[in-house]
């Protein structure tokens, strides 16, 4: 079973994309707490696509949710045809800094790295393909 859907890459569609991911994960009987984290990591990654791959707000985002054969894993694949953008190259903020010195950017990528077990990026045929994987969350 795999679930794929394409959306307009616009910020006001964000909730629809996240609902789709939530529903897909529910079908695999993933528990609520894990789904919330998957949705959180996805939000961060999707917002990056909307902001950096499609800065002028036009284009499409395809989301593919699938079960992995390995390690009871679940993956979320984000595919867009926008400007080349590799989130794995983004810098993480130093979360140990005192609050006065905190950089308010970069938190999103930090959360993705913390929640997901793997994040792979490739640029192929004019597309950004981001694969987020989480293991050991299937019943």
């Amino acid at each position, binding site marked *: 079973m795999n679930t794929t859907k394409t959306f307009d890459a616009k910020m*006001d569609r*964000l909730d629809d994309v996240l609902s789709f991911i939530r529903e897909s994960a529910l079908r695999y009987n993933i528990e609520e707490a894990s789904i919330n984290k998957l949705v959180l990591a996805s*939000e*961060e990654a999707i917002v990056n696509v909307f902001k950096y791959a499609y800065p002028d707000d036009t284009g499409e985002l395809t989301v593919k949710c699938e079960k992995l054969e390995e390690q009871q894993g679940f993956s979320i694949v984000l595919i867009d045809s926008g400007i080349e953008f590799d989130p794995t190259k983004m810098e993480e903020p130093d979360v*140990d800094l005192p609050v006065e010195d*905190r950089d308010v950017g970069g938190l*999103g990528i*930090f*959360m993705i790295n913390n929640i997901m077990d793997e994040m792979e990026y490739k640029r192929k045929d004019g597309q950004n393909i981001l694969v987020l994987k989480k293991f050991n969350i299937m019943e």
Partner: protein
Amino acid sequence: MSNKFTVAVDKNVAKVKMEGRLDTNNAAEFSEKLKPLLKKDIDELVLFMEDLNYISSAGLRVIVFMKQKLGRDTDVYVIAPQRDVLEVIEMAGFDSFLEIQDSYEG
């Protein structure tokens, strides 16, 4: 549940009731609600999170922004966060500068 943020200021304490979700779509609205507090003399910013189901980094950014602008003499409290929300706060390392409590007296 719909998303709702209610701000009430009593003397030097600002109480904010947060309901629903705080994410990329409404972080700006949340920020606008809180910004007037920067013009006041606030000793405590109290965020009631009991009914907040979800927070993303966009929401966390507003909180760290407020803490930075209000300064070190203003304490920011987080009251009764749900487990998922608390996990996100801890994951981001925000528990180092937020006072997280089950309830608020005062």
